């Protein structure tokens, strides 16, 4: 059973200007002390997330909606374990997969096959697991013999398809997505959407951060509206949210 539980999670970002990025200035500050330190140590702090609380369990399809800067991406990073909350309690039970930047870690001078190995390893897959899915990826991405050529020789569609096929082959309990993914031409898009939906269906909990309200209402059974790093009052006040048993996927029950 996967579960994501957050209680009053807050994230504060220190914003250092060049002065606070300097060790020399820091040393001068500590040595001179007193009056000088008072006005220089007050660096700006951005409250990226403020008192986020929720409890999502298996079956939850959570859409995070909000403007730029409302904290969606920061929240995803907190859930993925990249950012440790400054305050509050976060419990994540289950294996997490992030689908944010699908080509991150890939090297376009290496072959597709080598990049599957690299990216797969970064995603936490074992060599054996990578070997098991490689053929499936090559077939789905329709790469043929190109798989052993450097990725710089690929068309943008080809590298997109490879990255997409790889991102949708693991088996995570919790999936974090930044915007809905679509890849390639119209022909491939329906094929990709089908694969993505099957992949998401396997996961127990899915978080999708998006600007697209209609898409989120279509795909998610929970909608979290965020402004200025807060979850909007109505939902933030629910102390414990129990997910529906049947997740709504693609509008069908």
């Amino acid at each position, binding site marked *: 059973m996967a579960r994501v539980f957050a209680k009053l999670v807050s994230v504060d970002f220190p914003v250092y200007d060049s002065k606070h990025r300097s060790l020399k200035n820091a040393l001068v500050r500590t040595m001179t002390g007193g009056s000088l330190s008072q006005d220089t140590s007050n660096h700006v702090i951005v409250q990226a997330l403020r008192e986020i609380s929720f409890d999502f369990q298996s079956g939850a399809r959570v859409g995070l909606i909000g403007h730029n800067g409302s904290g969606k991406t920061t929240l995803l*990073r907190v859930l993925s*374990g990249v950012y*440790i909350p400054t305050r509050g309690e976060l419990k994540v039970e289950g294996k997490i997969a992030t689908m944010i930047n699908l080509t991150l870690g890939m090297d376009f001078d290496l072959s597709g096959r080598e990049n599957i190995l690299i990216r797969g390893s970064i995603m936490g897959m074992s060599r054996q697991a990578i070997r098991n899915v490689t053929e499936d990826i090559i077939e789905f991405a329709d790469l043929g013999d190109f798989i052993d050529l450097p990725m710089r020789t690929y068309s943008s569609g080809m590298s997109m398809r490879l990255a997409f096929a790889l991102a949708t082959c693991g088996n995570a309990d919790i999936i974090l997505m930044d915007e809905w993914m679509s890849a390639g031409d119209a022909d491939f898009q329906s094929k990709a959407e089908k694969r993505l939906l099957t992949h998401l269906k396997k996961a127990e909990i899915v978080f999708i951060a998006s600007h697209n309200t209609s898409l989120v209402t279509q795909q998610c059974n929970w909608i979290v509206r965020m402004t200025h790093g807060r979850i909007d009052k109505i939902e933030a006040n629910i102390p414990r949210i129990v997910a529906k048993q049947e997740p709504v996927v693609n509008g069908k029950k």
Partner: protein
Amino acid sequence: MIHLWALLAWVEIRQRYRRSKIGPFWLTITMACTVAGIGPLYALLFGIRIENYLFYLTVGMVVWSLISGIVTDTSNSFISSEALLKEFDLPAALFIFRSIYRNFIIFMHNLVVVAVVYLIYPVSLGISLLTVPLALFMIFWAGVSIGSIMALLCVRFRDVQLVIGNVLQIVFFMTPIMWKPSMLGEKAWLLNFNPVYVFLQSVRGPLTGESVDSSLWLAMLGICLFTTLVASWMMGVYGNRMRYWL
């Protein structure tokens, strides 16, 4: 997952020498040129016969490039992996290991130069040669702990990297790499306060027939233990904040 750092180190080396036929052996050639250029000149300046000097210089330069490479690369290892660190919950140590492993791969390539010089001007190698792997392990260990401290400092204070570059340049001249410890005469004991000398000498000594004092081993162990303590304290206190500083 276990070998991800090795994989990433290999990718990084491939990246740097992309589309070049001999790849990282470019570094070997650079090293060979350096030694071939400096060797005869300094043998002349110091009035030492080249056959007594070139192998000493080569080993010194190769080990120095390992040590300075580790210091430079580890201090940059969090900054240069910003994107990965911000998207995946990968252990920070992985990036330190990658930087160190990369430099050991380069070191292996440079050993070719050592071997060639050895064939031209053979020296007698004794049983003490067996301690070289242990000395290299100590460099690795110190690299992990000092590298973690440096990497963390460099993320928070962006001017540290410049300082490290300058310090390394000075240390190169203050460490007996081009010159010999015996040239200091009775002031040679001063070298014991140079940590780079301690690590360098533990590798070079057995190869060039100089004895490695047991005090050197104790010093290395002391440095490793102390920096490990500092590094684990810093990682414990600031490790979680590091990604916010990127």
